[in-house]
């Protein structure tokens, strides 16, 4: 396999982009990435999207976006793995370049969630339709059951879980593309509307529109386009049972542990070598569970770690979600995994401004679908 680099990135503002269609959003992000990477063409492209069919009634996104980006007849493939669609689109682009099949590939993701669809129902299609959703369970509901199990098993407190939202909002203030750029307090989280007990509105990532894209090429030619290529050190993916109830444990996500073990092995590193991570905080409890399953903290200690500030930008231990995470930056589902890579790229090339992690050499992205039935982990390295 060839060594692969990320050589340019581009994303739209995340938020309620009522004036822009799904095509506008994707093409804006893709054009920014192409310009940023200084390439005059792309050989192939991937579009991550969870449910453009339900959100805006448009499928066949590969061809749609290649057409509007003006790059037909190149191969253009839509990738779907629920909320991990973007991260897996990136992985597919990585594999295509690593295999030698293509030289320059665009990996993008997009979601347009504010066009009037029943968002709760559309998101729930990432769960088992006949044996979870049929009973009336929602996505906040599934993560709420994970939260209750974690609180029961490890004495994790409501305040510890809320600390994740407070920290991510604080980081998001310094991200110009974030949907919500305002700090919140623990009290504000704990007094927000209940969505699915014990999770409240400010435990949940928002409904968002947005697009993100990155350009990958083989390391051999990367220096032709940029002085600052970022190396993809590992990309690993795993799956688990579609229904939360089928698992032996509700407090460990096996797809995350499996993908992490594989990614660390490929990269030849251990969790302590990671300088910062972008993780899938679709709900606050998810960041706590994932921070344990990635090996940053002992099982059951993710809550206290969040409360003690070990995941904050200032802590130096392991800054998590310096971008603001899904919680503050926004979660246009298909774009999320690609936007995580963009935060890594900006950190590793020293372009993160006030969010900059000092001496950032190795960054990790963790993007998952559903209640963790799919997970993709990418490890990136500054040269």
């Amino acid at each position, binding site marked *: 396999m060839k060594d692969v680099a990320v050589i340019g990135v581009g994303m739209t503002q995340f938020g309620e982009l009522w004036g822009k269609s799904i095509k506008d959003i994707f093409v804006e992000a893709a054009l920014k990435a192409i310009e940023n990477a200084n390439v005059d063409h792309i050989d192939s492209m991937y579009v991550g999207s969870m449910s453009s069919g339900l959100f805006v009634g448009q499928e066949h996104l590969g061809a749609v976006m290649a057409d509007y980006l003006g790059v037909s007849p190149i191969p253009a493939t839509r990738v779907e793995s629920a909320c991990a669609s973007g991260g897996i689109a990136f992985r597919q682009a990585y594999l295509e370049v690593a295999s030698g099949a293509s030289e320059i590939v665009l990996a993008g993701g997009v979601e347009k969630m504010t066009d009037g669809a*029943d968002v*709760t*129902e559309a998101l*729930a299609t990432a769960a088992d339709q*006949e*044996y*979870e959703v*049929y*009973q*009336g*369970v*929602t996505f*906040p*509901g599934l993560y*709420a*059951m*994970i939260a*209750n*199990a974690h609180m*029961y098993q490890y004495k994790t407190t409501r305040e510890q879980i809320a600390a994740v939202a407070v920290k991510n909002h604080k980081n998001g203030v310094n991200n110009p593309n974030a949907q919500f750029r305002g700090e919140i307090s623990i009290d504000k989280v704990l007094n927000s*509307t*209940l*969505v*699915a*007990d*014990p*999770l409240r509105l400010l435990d949940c990532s928002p409904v968002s529109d947005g697009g993100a894209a990155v350009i990958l090429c083989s390391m051999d030619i990367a220096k032709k386009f940029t002085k600052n290529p970022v190396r993809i050190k590992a990309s690993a993916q795993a799956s688990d049972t579609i*229904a*939360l*109830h*089928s698992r032996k444990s*509700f407090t460990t996500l096996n797809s995350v542990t499996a993908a992490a073990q594989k990614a660390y092995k490929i990269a030849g590193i251990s969790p302590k070598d990671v300088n910062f991570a972008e993780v899938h905080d679709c709900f606050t409890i998810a960041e706590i569970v994932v921070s344990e399953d990635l090996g940053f903290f002992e099982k059951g200690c993710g809550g206290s770690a969040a409360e003690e500030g070990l995941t904050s930008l200032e802590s130096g231990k392991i800054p998590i979600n310096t971008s603001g995470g899904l919680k503050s930056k926004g979660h246009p589902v298909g774009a999320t995994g690609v936007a995580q890579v963009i935060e890594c790229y900006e950190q590793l090339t020293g372009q993160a401004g006030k969010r900059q992690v000092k001496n950032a050499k190795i960054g990790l992205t963790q993007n998952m679908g559903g209640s963790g039935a799919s997970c993709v982990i990418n490890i990136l390295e500054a040269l």
Partner: protein
Amino acid sequence: MISPKYFREIPQRYRLEAGKCKKCGQVYFPPRLICPECKSKQFETIKLNPEGKLLTYTIIRIASDKFSIQAPYAVGIVELNDGVKLTTQIANVDFDRIKIGMKLKLVFRKIQDEGAAGLHCYGYKAIVI
């Protein structure tokens, strides 16, 4: 006419029929065509014991449009005495009384109305024993 996507699930939703692997004994609900544990394709149909205990739960306050008329409602993961785990609503209960570990029993209830015609769809919900 009854909808195919509804009637094909009736053995599970009305009668709690599960598949028991003839090779390793693992029970699957709903039944599967291959056993993820031992890869056997031989199963026998068994009827689940409707009693079990609550492993985790939540109260859904914000539901999808289809379920919004029922909100708030309790949902939990129940482990039946056969070892099978499933997601179900917990009916006829004060939310404050719900505790992890409590004993529950599955009963036959209306679950939702499907489609524009409002087809009544039935299945199991848990009640406190």
